[in-house]
């Protein structure tokens, strides 16, 4: 087991290095930080621009490999370099990681809990009205892309604020209001108001996915011998379903949960951008628009690490929960 894990980790480390290097090289070739200075007035002299770009390790007159070596040496020391406006990338990303983390954790917990609940209920009464309803709804939800869903939510919230509540209940932009002076509870309420819509936009899709997944897993388990045995020994259907069927059916779902967490760190990109949350995903879009090579490379490195950590965690979790996997 230890040898297997070590080989796996080594493979992951190589993957991360290659993925990050590819991302850096691609970004450094395709993006053009020099163009950021072109439309400034007054136009800065070429020598000044050159010096500025060289200081940031973004000068396209320096050979690509030399820039790459400087960047890689920095990353090995834990320094992702500086963004196009000279601020350190590390500090910026550290702050943004917190923002993304809060959003993703809440969205994922809501989505998976409600999804598992819906899926289990649907499976318990297969072809009942709830099963049909949830199947139909999840089909519709899976056909709505996040960019459309988020905009529909914003429209609905604007309408509700105007016509139902008559005041701003749902706040559609940012993480919190600036310059609020209402004490602790006021702040909490304000944050909650900002949090509702992005969380809904993240969770709705997850609910659909998790409920389909949980339903199928549950249906596989329901016909199993040990569930029938449990009922034969006198357990009621309800407690047999919860104590025996649901627990077994949750194992693959837990694995899926861990994996989704890793992909969501950048998967929340659209939600963050549309709702104006200053997280990692939003920075990915902004940095591409601003030709910010170092930030692009840093975010892709984080994304790669997150995906690999998540898939490792998913495997370990599966082994921890399911003795049959460990035995192999």
């Amino acid at each position, binding site marked *: 087991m230890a040898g297997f894990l070590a080989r796996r980790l080594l493979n992951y480390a190589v993957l991360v290095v290659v993925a990050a290097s590819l991302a850096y090289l691609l970004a450094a070739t395709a993006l053009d930080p020099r163009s950021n200075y072109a439309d400034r007035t007054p136009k800065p002299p070429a020598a000044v621009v050159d010096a500025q770009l060289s200081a940031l390790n973004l000068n396209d007159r320096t050979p690509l490999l030399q820039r790459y070596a400087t960047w890689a040496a920095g990353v090995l020391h834990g320094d992702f370099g500086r963004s196009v406006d000279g601020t350190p990338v590390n500090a910026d990303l550290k702050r943004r990681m917190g923002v993304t983390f809060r959003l993703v954790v809440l969205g994922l917990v809501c989505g998976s809990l409600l999804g598992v609940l819906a899926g289990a209920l649907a499976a318990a009464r297969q072809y009942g009205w709830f099963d049909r309803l949830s199947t139909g709804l999840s089909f519709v939800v899976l056909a709505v892309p996040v960019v*459309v869903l988020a905009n529909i939510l914003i429209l609905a919230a604007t309408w509700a604020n105007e016509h139902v509540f008559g005041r701003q209940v749902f706040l559609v932009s940012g993480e919190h209001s600036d310059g609020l002076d209402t004490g602790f509870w006021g702040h909490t309420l304000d944050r909650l108001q900002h949090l509702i819509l992005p969380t809904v936009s993240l969770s709705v899709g997850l609910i659909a996915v998790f409920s389909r997944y949980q339903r199928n897993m549950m249906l596989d388990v329901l016909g199993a011998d040990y569930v029938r045995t449990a009922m034969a020994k006198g357990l009621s259907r309800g407690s047999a379903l919860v104590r025996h069927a649901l627990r077994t059916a949750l194992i693959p779902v837990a694995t899926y949960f861990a994996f989704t967490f890793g992909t969501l760190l*950048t998967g929340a990109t659209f939600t963050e951008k549309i709702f104006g949350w200053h997280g990692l995903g939003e920075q990915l*879009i902004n940095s591409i628009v601003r030709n910010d090579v170092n930030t692009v490379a840093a975010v892709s490195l984080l994304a790669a690490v997150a995906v690999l950590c998540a898939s490792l965690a998913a495997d370990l979790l599966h082994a921890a929960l399911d003795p049959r996997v460990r035995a192999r």
Partner: protein
Amino acid sequence: MTLSEEELAEELRADVLTRPPSRARLIAGRFFRSGQGRLGFAVLALMFLLAFAGPLVSPWSYLDKDFTAFLRPPSPGHWFGTLQTGADVFAVTLRGMQKSLIVGLLAALVSTALAAVAGAFAGYFLGWTDRTVTWVSDLLLVLPAFLVLAIMSPLFGAGRWPLFVITLALFLWMVTSKVVRGMTISTKEREFIQAARYMGVPPVRIIFRHVIPNLSSLLIVDATLNVSTAILTETSLSYFGFGIQPPDVSLGTLIADGSRTAVYAPWTFWFAAGLLVVTVLAVNLVGDALRDAFDPSSARPR
């Protein structure tokens, strides 16, 4: 007519009558017997008809601007209303749908073909081929697809959208190829493949003549579901300006523009968004019904 000829004719007719139905007809029969399949197919056909025949009946083309009507609601002159630029929403939306449908179909075809070839080669040859394919697909899974597509987006301008399709397809094939690889490893041990191998058929020929056709049901379903994934990815990228580049339009760019004016001019947003959702829903219904048709054991008992 002599007796033997008559017998022969009789035999021929009997042969026609007792010939088992072909697999394609069997699948098509099962597919169209399910309500889901019928509905999905009908809606999808309607969407194609609308996207490609609709512009013929509309008085406006997607390039026309009506300078007497800016941001007007739907009317007999402009069926879906007009945009801020005076463009006809009906014409522009259909143009966007054409692009989204074509991009979706092509990207799905390319990615499924890629998945089939890569997975089958990896599973058949194992060893170094397998390790290389697995490693490359792991690498592509780790790289954020959105990032690579977004960085490459300046290259997609000026009518070079086929490049966009290929890049998009490059990020859709990995998971399927892993499934194909697993199935190839088990198919490889079947008698007809071993027979072919002992008869000296070259491995590449075995893969294309025997292995991949035997996985066709998986691949067809996968290609169908990939169409919806590709359309959704294309829309999201175009929404942020990283996909289809102007002057070309796609549903994504339309939704992005429409969402800015949606509060006071709902027609600029809802037609494009609605048609997108209906199209993707229809594709998913067709894919699901196809899966049931190929594998009756997974279908709901009724």
